[in-house]
């Protein structure tokens, strides 16, 4: 019953997507309101259909309807309900179903938000999203059908992959990642929609950027959440291993971040139009490529993926979209001419361009490292792997350069500057950076990378504080409000800029956390008899006993370890090994005692299975790991500030005049400025340097 309902819903969604694509594109090109209307309704319909499919699948999972093949593969009567519910995304077909549902949700949201928009873009955007939908719903209707039946109906199933039912974060990290991944198809649809409609002026870019920030925020939290999950579950004491699955989520993040910076150059100076389109399209292609990489089995062996249908289908779809996008850009190339030019070698826009070059270089290096084993296996039939040292070696210097630019860019004016201005903007941050390096050097740190990181971090942080200080004092001059309120004003009225600075602050915190935890982590592995103690750094750990616990879905073996930091008792730590009937290898649950300065991380490696008299434990002192999670939270808050709907930003009238004739947005800027003058508050601090 549920299987029929689910499958019918998927077919309905597929039909809805086909109708959306046809009515959207035809209606858009011929400008037929009836068809345009139909494309919106079909988008809503698709969302309702996919929601029904998801509800059917959840009902099948939670009621243990093992006649549904997917449920018989990932469900079991013993799995706790929470993990049963989230096993929706624990296997290929279920995760494509989840993907499709989110896609339909985004499309419906776009249709709703733009229902009164008259710029002619909406039908093309919905049509593009519908086209992407056809691919995913088509997969669900055919090769990745999660609603297939299995005869005879099994009594029970194996439950989800043990790794995926071992930590509650599994309910948070994948949805965030999916919201980010699928969310990136919206800016893609705006880019393709703008190319199709030929309306390549600013409106599409404004919307694409908003959606990009939202997807980017989810993706950032998803990536950080993945690192956190890996830290809490995998038991090796690290959070990032440059695993292809991790890289797959990181690649689109890099290009999306590049776009969020270069888009400002287009908005302000009308430059980089083709480049921005390429970044949006490339980002979406990378999400598909990442999914292909992690879901097609190609990572096990180049030759494995051709055995399935999904891999080649993904590859074909990627090729189709890439080719189609190229053709569209070439077709519209006459409208992508840039009116602006690079005026000064040292300017905000050149900083952004350098930023983009580095982001693209990072994307290239990570991508190459990820696919290099595949290339070698395919070309020379040798099996190799590219280890974390490659990524660390190539990534670190480039990332440090980016960190440095993060302090330079915001303090540089647009267009051009003078040596005098440069000196005024940079003497303080540079002083702070140098002071930080000096102090830390005197404290005895001699390693180059951490020193450079701390110096740059101090430099960037000082620039950000300086930007806030300038903004607050300018607002106080204008409105006479007290500093705290003026500060809030900045965040609420100009969230794009100051939210961006909050994001930067989060990234600085993460960079410092990475530098510290990467350089000063140390570990010991020892076998302790009952009552024996281990000393590691400031910590003391005593092994008391082995305990076992019967749970419905697994058998747990754990050790009771008392832990002290100095003289302070940290309680009994319980690192565990979980034996799932379906896994030949136990899944570890490390015990992590977190503090701001350092974590004590205990993993049970082996134990005396006869009498429980001894246990082998790996103890890791992991400094500053908590900063990564805190930094991630700050990034999320900053993105929320940047995207929070606020009043139309008003600009200094001189600014609009200054831009007149040089930027395509001059008209809208002038309008905005005059509107602002008519408004109750004549002048608000815009995103130009106050007082310029």
């Amino acid at each position, binding site marked *: 019953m549920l299987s029929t309902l689910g499958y019918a819903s998927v077919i309905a969604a597929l039909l809805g997507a086909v109708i959306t694509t046809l009515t959207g594109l035809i209606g858009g090109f011929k400008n037929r309101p009836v068809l345009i209307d139909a494309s919106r309704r079909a988008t809503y319909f698709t969302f309702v259909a996919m929601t029904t499919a998801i509800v059917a699948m959840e009902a099948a999972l939670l009621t243990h309807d093992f006649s549904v093949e997917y449920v018989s593969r990932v469900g*079991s009567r013993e799995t706790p309900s929470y993990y049963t519910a989230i096993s929706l995304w624990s296997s290929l077909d279920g995760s494509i179903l989840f993907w499709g549902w989110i896609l339909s949700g985004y499309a419906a949201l776009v249709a709703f938000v733009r229902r009164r928009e008259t710029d002619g873009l909406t039908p093309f955007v919905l049509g593009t999203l519908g086209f992407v939908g056809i691919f995913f719903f088509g997969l669900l209707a055919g090769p990745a059908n999660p609603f297939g039946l299995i005869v005879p109906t*099994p*009594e*029970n*199933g*194996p439950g989800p*992959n*043990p790794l995926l039912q071992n930590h509650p974060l599994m309910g948070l990290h994948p949805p965030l990642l999916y919201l980010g991944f699928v969310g990136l198809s919206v800016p893609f649809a705006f880019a393709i929609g703008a190319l199709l409609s030929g309306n390549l002026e600013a409106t599409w870019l404004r919307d694409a950027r908003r959606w990009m920030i939202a997807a980017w925020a989810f993706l950032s939290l998803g990536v950080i959440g993945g690192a956190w999950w890996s830290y809490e579950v995998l038991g090796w004491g690290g959070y990032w291993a440059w695993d292809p699955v991790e890289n797959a989520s990181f690649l689109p993040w890099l290009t999306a971040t590049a776009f969020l910076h270069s888009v400002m150059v287009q908005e302000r100076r009308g430059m980089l139009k083709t480049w921005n389109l390429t970044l949006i399209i490339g980002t979406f292609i990378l999400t598909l490529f990442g999914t292909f990489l992690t879901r097609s089995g190609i990572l096990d062996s180049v030759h494995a993926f051709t055995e399935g249908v999904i891999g080649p289908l993904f590859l074909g779809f990627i090729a189709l979209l890439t080719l189609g996008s190229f053709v569209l850009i070439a077709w519209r190339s006459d409208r992508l001419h840039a009116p602006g030019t*690079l005026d000064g*070698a040292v300017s905000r826009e050149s900083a952004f361009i350098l930023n983009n*070059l580095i982001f693209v*270089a990072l994307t*290239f*290096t990570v991508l*190459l*490292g990820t696919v*290099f084993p595949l290339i*070698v296996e395919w070309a020379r039939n*040798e*099996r*190799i*792997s*590219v*280890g974390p*040292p*490659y*990524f660390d*070696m*190539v990534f670190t*210097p*480039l990332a440090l350069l980016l960190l440095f630019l993060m302090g330079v860019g915001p303090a540089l004016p647009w267009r051009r500057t003078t040596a005098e201005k440069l000196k005024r903007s940079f003497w303080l941050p540079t002083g702070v950076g140098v002071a930080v390096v000096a102090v830390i050097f005197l404290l005895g740190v001699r390693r180059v990378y951490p020193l450079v990181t701390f110096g740059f971090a101090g430099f960037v942080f000082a620039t950000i504080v300086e930007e806030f200080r300038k903004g607050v004092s300018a607002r106080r001059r204008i409105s006479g409000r007290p500093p705290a309120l003026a500060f809030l004003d900045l965040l609420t009225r100009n969230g794009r800029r100051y939210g961006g600075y909050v994001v930067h602050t989060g990234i600085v915190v993460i960079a410092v956390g990475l530098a510290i935890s990467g350089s000063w982590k140390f570990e010991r*592995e*020892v*076998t302790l008899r009952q009552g024996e103690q281990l000393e590691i750094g400031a910590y003391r750990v005593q092994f008391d006993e082995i305990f076992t616990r*019967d*749970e*419905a*879905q*697994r*058998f747990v*073996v754990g050790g009771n370890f008392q832990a002290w930091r100095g003289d302070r008792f940290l309680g009994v730590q319980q690192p565990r*090994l979980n*034996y*799932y*009937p*379906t*896994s*030949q*290898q*136990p899944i570890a649950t490390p015990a992590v005692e977190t503090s701001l300065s350092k974590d004590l991380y205990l993993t049970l*490696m*082996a134990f005396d*299975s*006869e009498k429980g008299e*001894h246990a*082998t434990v*790996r103890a890791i002192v992991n400094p500053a790991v908590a900063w990564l999670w805190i930094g991630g939270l700050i990034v999320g808050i900053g993105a929320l500030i940047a995207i929070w709907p606020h009043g139309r930003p008003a600009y200094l009238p001189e600014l609009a005049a200054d831009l007149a004739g040089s930027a395509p947005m001059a008209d809208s800027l002038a309008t905005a400025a005059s509107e602002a003058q008519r408004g109750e508050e004549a002048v608000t601090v815009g995103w130009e340097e106050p007082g310029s």
Partner: protein
Amino acid sequence: MNRRRVWIGLGLVAIAGAVILLVAGGLRENVVYFLTPTELEAKGAEVYGAPLRLGGQVKPESVDWNPDVGRLLFVITDGETELPVESSGAPPAMFSEGMGVVVEGSYREDGVFRSHNVMVKHSNEYRPPEEGEHPREVYRSLIDEEAGG
């Protein structure tokens, strides 16, 4: 204008060149080959000291685990060639004789493979529990396999 373009072009070439050098150097130094004992023996001196992954089976009755000094000795075999492995650290929880393992480390002149990481090769296929089978019994059977060696 033209001169500026030349400079921008030169800058781009310089950056691209630097990145390519960095990447090529990084790949050359950090590619880890995956070999079987026979392939390793054939390469011999060519790969002394290079980071490697060695795949094979644990030869029965060759395991010597000393928890007091944290040293694990065993012989890895692919049915054709046998190689002694010395590893620091405890064997992974499901380590047992006759099972497939992947060891990370390097090959030394003395003919011993020094490993810093022993990974149990486990298939990603999960078998459903048999009728009435309880997790504890499965655990028992796995542990006995290990202890029985």
